[in-house]
C-alpha cells in the first residue's frame, strides 16, 4: 500500500511539476522514430547526381550513357565532351560522381582490346561515395558482358562461361542496405534512454535532498520509483516499436517478448545508473548537463554504428561499460534477423549492472542517513551541554 502511495505521489509530481520531463520520457522515442524514419524513408541514397564525360561521342558510348541514365540510383546531370567541364561540376558539388569514356572506345572494343573507363567519385562523404560506386560497377559489368557476348558471336569464338565463379549471395538482416533498418531501432532506444535517465535521476535527486527516502524507507521508495519510471519507459519503447513497424513498415522478425525483456533489463540498468549519478551531483542543473553530455558518446561508442571489431582495445573496454552496448545490436538483430545469439547473456549483464547500481544507491543513502543521524545526535548532545 505504501509503495502504491509513493507511486501515486511520484506520478502527480511528474504530471504537474515535471510535465516537460514526462513528455520527454514518454514521447521522445516516438518523436525520434518519426523524425529519423522520415529522414531515411528512401532507405538508400538515391538520385545521386552524376555527370558523364563522353570523349568519343559514338553510338556505343551513347548506349553506355543511356544505361547510366536509366540506373535507378542516378540522376544524370550533364554529359560533356571535355573533362574540365565535368570536373568543374564536381568541384562545385553539382555532381557526386563522374564517368569518363575515353577516346577510341568503340575502336578498341572492335579490336578486342581492353578498355578502361574512369569513375571518379567525391569521397568526402563516405556514405554517398559507397552508394555511388556500386550501381556504376553493375552498369559497366552488364555493358561489358553484353559486349563480350556480341564479340563472341561475331568472331565465332568457342562458347566459354563468361563468369567462371558465380556468387549466390544471401544477405541476412538488411538485404536492401536500408539505412532505416540500420539506424531506426537504435535511435529509438537511445531516445528512450535519455528520457528515462533524466526523469529517474531528477526523481531520486529531489527526494534525496528532501530526506523522503529516510522517512518512507530507502528500498521501498526506490522500488516504487523504478516501477513507475521503468514502466513508463517500457511504454515509450512499445510506442516506438509500434510506430516503426506500423508507420515505417520495418520488419520485426524475432520474438517480441524476448526483445521486450531485453528492454526491461536495459531500463532497469539505466535507471539505477542514473540514480547513482543523481546522488553525486550537488545541483539539479549539473546533473541534467552530465546526463545529456553522456547521450551522444554512449550511442556512438556502443558499437551500434561503428562495430567493436573496428575499435581500439581501450575504446572497446569503454564500450563494454555502456548499457547501450548490450541492447542496441541485439535489439536490431532480433528485429531484423529474428535471433541474437548473446541476447540472454546480455540481459544477465544488464541485470547485474542494474542490481549493482541499486545496491550502491542503497548503500550511499544508508551511509548518508547514518551520518546525518550521528550528526544530529551529536548536535543535540552538544545543546544539552555534554
Amino acid at each position, binding site marked *: 500500500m505504501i509503495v502504491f502511495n509513493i507511486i501515486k505521489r511520484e506520478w502527480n509530481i511528474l504530471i504537474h511539476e515535471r510535465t516537460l520531463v514526462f513528455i520527454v520520457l514518454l514521447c521522445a522515442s516516438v518523436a525520434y522514430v518519426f523524425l529519423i524514419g522520415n529522414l531515411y524513408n528512401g532507405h538508400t541514397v538515391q538520385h545521386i547526381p552524376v555527370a558523364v564525360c563522353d570523349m568519343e561521342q559514338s553510338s556505343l558510348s551513347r548506349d553506355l550513357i543511356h544505361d547510366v541514365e536509366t540506373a535507378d540510383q542516378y540522376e544524370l546531370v550533364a554529359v560533356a565532351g571535355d573533362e574540365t567541364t565535368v570536373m568543374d561540376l564536381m568541384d562545385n558539388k553539382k555532381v557526386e560522381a563522374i564517368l569518363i569514356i575515353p577516346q577510341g572506345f568503340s575502336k578498341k572494343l572492335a579490336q578486342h582490346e581492353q578498355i578502361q573507363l574512369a569513375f571518379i567519385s567525391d*569521397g568526402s562523404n563516405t556514405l554517398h561515395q559507397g552508394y555511388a560506386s556500386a550501381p556504376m560497377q553493375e552498369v559497366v559489368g552488364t555493358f561489358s558482358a553484353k559486349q563480350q557476348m556480341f564479340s563472341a558471336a561475331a568472331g565465332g569464338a568457342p562458347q566459354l562461361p563468361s563468369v*567462371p565463379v558465380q*556468387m549466390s549471395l544471401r544477405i541476412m538482416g538488411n538485404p536492401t542496405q536500408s539505412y532505416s533498418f540500420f539506424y531506426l531501432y537504435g535511435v529509438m532506444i537511445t531516445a528512450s534512454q535519455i528520457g528515462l535517465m533524466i526523469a529517474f535521476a531528477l526523481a531520486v535527486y529531489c527526494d534525496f535532498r528532501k530526506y523522503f527516502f529516510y522517512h518512507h524507507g530507502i528500498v521501498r521508495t526506490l522500488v516504487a520509483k523504478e516501477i513507475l519510471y521503468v514502466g513508463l519507459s517500457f511504454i515509450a519503447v512499445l510506442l516506438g516499436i509500434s510506430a516503426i513497424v506500423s508507420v515505417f513498415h520495418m520488419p520485426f522478425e524475432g520474438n517480441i517478448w524476448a526483445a521486450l525483456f531485453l528492454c526491461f533489463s536495459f531500463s532497469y540498468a539505466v535507471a539505477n545508473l542514473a540514480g547513482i549519478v543523481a546522488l553525486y551531483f550537488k545541483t539539479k542543473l549539473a546533473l541534467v548537463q552530465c546526463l545529456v553530455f553522456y547521450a*551522444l558518446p554512449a550511442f556512438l561508442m556502443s558499437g551500434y554504428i561503428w562495430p567493436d571489431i573496428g575499435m581500439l582495445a581501450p575504446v572497446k573496454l569503454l564500450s563494454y561499460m555502456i548499457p547501450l552496448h548490450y541492447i542496441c545490436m541485439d535489439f536490431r538483430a532480433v528485429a531484423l534477423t529474428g535471433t541474437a545469439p548473446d541476447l540472454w547473456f546480455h540481459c544477465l549483464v544488464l541485470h547485474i549492472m542494474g542490481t549493482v547500481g541499486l545496491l550502491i544507491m542503497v548503500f550511499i543513502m544508508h551511509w548518508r542517513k547514518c551520518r546525518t543521524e550521528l550528526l544530529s545526535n551529536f548536535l543535540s548532545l552538544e545543546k544539552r551541554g555534554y
Partner: protein
Amino acid sequence: MWHEIMKEVILLWSVHKKAFWMIVFVPILYTLLFGSLFYEGSLTKVPIIIENYDDGAQGRRFEQAFYDTPEFIIVDSTAVSYGTIIIPSDFSKKLDRGDSVSIEVVIDNTNTVIGGSIMKSIQTIVATYNAGQEAMNRISVGWTPQVAQAEAAPVVLSSRSLYNSTGGYNDFFLVVLIVHALQIGTVFVIGPSMVLEKRRRRDKLLRHPWQCLAAKLVVYTAIETVTFVVCLSLAAIIFKLVLHGNAGGILSLTILFSATMTSFGLCAGSWLKDPVKAITYALFYIMPSVLFSGAIWPRTSMDSISLALTYIMPIGYAADNMRDLLVRGFAPNLLVDMVAMLMMGSIFFLAAGCGLKRTLGGNDRVQHYKAGMEHSHP
C-alpha cells in the same frame, strides 16, 4: 562595450567557472573519444567462416585468397562471424572442365558497415579470381594471352575516389562530430547560465540588456572558437585528420557558427525561467541535428519535410562546409551558407534581447504592482 566585455570575462572566471570549463572540455573530450573510436579508419579482420567442401587445387587456391586478405580473419564455425562462404565439392572439377560454378555467400548485414565491408572485399576477391580464370580458359582454347585478357572483361571500370580516397571514417565523420560537440557544449551550458544570470544580475540586465548580451556573445564566441581550433589541432596531430582548407575560411566559419550557437543558447536562456528546461528544450534540437545536417545523409535523398528541417538548423550550414574546407580544401557553398547563418544568428540574438526584456520586464511589472498594492493597503 569594452568595459562590459571585461566585466563578462571577470564574471566568467568568478561565477561561471564551471560553465567555462564545460564549454572548453566537452568538445575536447568528444574529439578525443570519437577520434579514438574511428582510429582504425576502416574495418579489418572481420571474422568469416569458409566451408570448403572441395578437395581440389582450385578450391584451395580460392580459399587461400580469403586468408591473404587483411579484411578477413577466418574463424571456425562455432565462433561469432559475420559471413559464411561455402565452396561446393565440385568447385575444382567444374572449373577445370571450363564450366561455371556457384559459391554460396551468406552475409549478416544487420550492421551495414560490416556487411558492406564484407561484400566489397568478397566481390574484389571473386572478380580477381574470375579475371584470371577466364583468361586461362581462353588461352587453353587457343586464344592469344592479350586477346584472352581483353575478352575476359572488355570494359573495366577504374574507380578513383577524390578527397577521401581510403574512405576513412575520421575524415568523413570526425569533423562533423567536432562541430556537433561544439554546439552541444555551447547550447547546454549558455542557456542555463543565462537563466541563472537573470536571477543574479537582474537589475543590470534590465538596464542594459543589449550591451550585456553583446558582451556575452563576444566572450563566448571567442572561447568556442579557440576551443574548436584546439579540437581541430588535436584531431590533426593525434588522429591525422586532413587540413586542406585555408585558415581564413575555417576560422570565419567557426566564428560565425559559434556566434550563431551562442545566440541560440542566449535566446533559450532569455525566454525560459528554469535552467533545466533550457536543457530539455534544447535536446529537441541537439539530438537529431547531426543527422539532419546534410553532412551524413545527403540532401538529395531527403523528402521536403526533412529538407526543410535541415535549413532551419544552424549546423546544416556549418558541418558539410567545414568538412569540405578541411577535406576538399574549399567549400563551394560557403559564402551563401555563411550569409544564411549570419541571418539566423541575428534573429536568435534579437529574440534573445526581446526575451530578456519580456521576462525581466514582466517580473518588474509584477513587482511594481505588488508594491502599489502594499502602498494602497498598508
